[in-house]
């Protein structure tokens, strides 16, 4: 005979009631865990993708859009800026590191990004195999891009106009893969990188063709070269004072700080998350209240048996312990099932987001968070059980036996 055996005997009496409690607790815990896991994955993604970039300089427009397009590679750009402007800013002595990116084409929905060498450097990208591109029309594939395209070193492919699939094919300008990158856990994994010249070459050729069709003489004169954005890391905090000001003075140029815009983006997304959080809290509250009620009912139902246990010498502390142990078991079970549900849900949302062109999110591996979730479910159950346990503790055998006699 053990306390655990006694608890099982009690639980077995209303299995459906306890199953319902475990279920509501698991749903509440699961939803909460999913929201937190997904939010953390999003935060990690933001942090990894920002990669210490302090300032993005691009064409005028929405600053959030500038960041989502140039950093997260998830939006269309605000436009392009003259190469000359970008080069001048990059040479400023407040700039510790910089990279130019040029967006133009895609292959099967994956962006082909013309980038200077500073770009992979921001993300600490290294080659898994092959070599870095050296000439126009040579590309290096991010790890996920290589997998998606099923291409390796030496393969060739043609890009499509625009940033999503379905654009006009640039059939006469095939790209050649010279290398594949190691996984970085950043945006670069899903990109196809090349030198800016590749993008310029295709688009200058296109402009020329177009002009020739229209019979314009201007076709002979090349347009000034452009880039989409300049990514900057400051040399010191002073950079935050001088560089945005400098950019603001230039015509048709804007500068945006990724951490600031990411926080704004996060708060936009956060509205939905907050709603879900309240829903989860409501579920947990319903679960908790339901547990309090059913536990009180169970104690009432067991009054005579608790009284019997008291008369044969069971201490009140032990009766308290029985109820708390019962609550712990159910809390633990609800917590574990809830965590499993939450992980499934977060994983499903993350992969759905990735499949629809959103950022690829990595849900954190099992760790302290999971233990905290189970611990919280346990704590919630114990708090809910406090009143009923106290009522069991106060079982007065005399009153109950008298009433029965």
């Amino acid at each position, binding site marked *: 005979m*053990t306390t655990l055996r006694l608890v099982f005997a009690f639980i077995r009496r209303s299995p459906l009631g306890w199953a319902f409690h475990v279920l509501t607790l698991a749903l509440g815990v699961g939803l909460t865990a999913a929201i937190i896991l997904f939010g953390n994955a999003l935060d990690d993604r933001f942090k990894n993708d920002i990669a210490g970039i302090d300032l993005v300089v691009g064409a005028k427009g929405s600053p959030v859009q500038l960041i989502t397009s140039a950093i997260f590679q998830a939006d269309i750009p605000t436009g392009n800026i003259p190469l000359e402007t970008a080069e001048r800013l990059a040479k400023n002595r407040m700039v510790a590191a910089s990279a130019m990116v040029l967006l133009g084409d895609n292959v099967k929905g994956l962006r082909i990004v013309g980038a200077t060498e500073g770009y992979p450097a921001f993300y600490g990208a290294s080659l898994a195999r092959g070599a870095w591109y050296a000439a126009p029309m040579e590309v290096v594939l991010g790890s996920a891009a290589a997998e998606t395209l099923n291409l390796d070193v030496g393969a060739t492919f043609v890009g499509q106009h625009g940033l999503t699939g379905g654009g006009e094919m640039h059939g006469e300008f095939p790209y050649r893969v010279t290398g594949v990158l190691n996984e970085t856990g950043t945006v670069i994994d899903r990109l196809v990188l090349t030198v800016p010249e590749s993008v310029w070459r295709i688009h200058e050729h296109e402009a020329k063709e177009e002009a020739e069709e229209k019979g314009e003489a201007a076709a002979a004169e090349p347009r000034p070269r452009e880039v989409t954005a300049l990514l900057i890391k400051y040399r010191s905090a002073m950079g935050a004072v001088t560089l945005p000001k400098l950019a603001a003075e230039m015509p048709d140029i804007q500068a945006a700080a990724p951490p600031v815009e990411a926080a704004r983006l996060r708060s936009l997304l956060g509205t939905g998350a907050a709603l879900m959080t309240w829903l989860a809290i409501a579920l947990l509250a319903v679960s908790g209240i339901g547990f309090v009620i059913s536990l009180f009912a169970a104690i009432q139902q067991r009054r005579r048996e608790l009284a019997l246990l008291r008369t044969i010498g*069971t201490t009140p502390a032990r009766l308290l312990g029985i109820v708390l142990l019962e609550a712990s078991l159910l809390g633990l079970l609800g917590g574990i099932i809830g965590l499993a549900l939450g992980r499934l849900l977060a994983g499903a949302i993350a992969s759905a987001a990735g499949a629809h062109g959103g950022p690829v999110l990595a849900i954190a591996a099992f760790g302290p968070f999971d233990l905290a979730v189970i611990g919280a479910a346990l704590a919630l159950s114990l708090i809910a059980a406090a009143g009923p346990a106290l009522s069991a503790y106060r079982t007065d055998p005399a009153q109950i036996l008298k009433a029965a006699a």
Partner: protein
Amino acid sequence: MLEIVALQAGYGSAPVARLPELRLEPGAAALLVGGSGSGKTTLMLAIAGLARRFGGHARIGGTDLADLGGGARDRARARMVGFVFQDIHLVAGLTALENVLLAPYAAGVAQDIERARGLLARLGLAGIAGQRAERISRGQAQRVAIARALMLKPRLLLADEPTASLDDQACEAVAGLLLDAAAEANAPLLISTHDSRLKARVALHVQAEAMA
């Protein structure tokens, strides 16, 4: 040995019943009689240290449970007093054997499974040791409760209205079992009852006196 002197028992702030005097040698039996509401159950609970004591003594083998503090009193009761009731016998969900083992569990002493099985067998319950309490008949359940009361070799057996709702044959059987159990355990047996059938079996009667 049970010695009761001027015991006054009740709840809250006022005593509800009185038992002037009772001495019971080991193995001897007595009936605690009185009409409904005379406070028989209250007196029984007071002897076991479960109701409030307003005066007098109730010593079991020289120990008055009322003198002990909370936890010690519970453990002493678990070891010294075997209780049998009218209709609350077992904890559902546990087997007959586990219900007998509740006695050492409550007392916090080693659980002698062989002794529990032996007691069930002596009470003719060997076949249902593994059956869950809710599938056992009332008569059998009461016998399991008697086995539990005997489990720790008590120094006092208390039975509260054990025959109140039984037919003559069952009443006879339960009375026999309780008297045999007391003799075998060499413990005094006090039965609270208003059942006239028991009065024929047990000669010594003491009156519970209600207090206004």
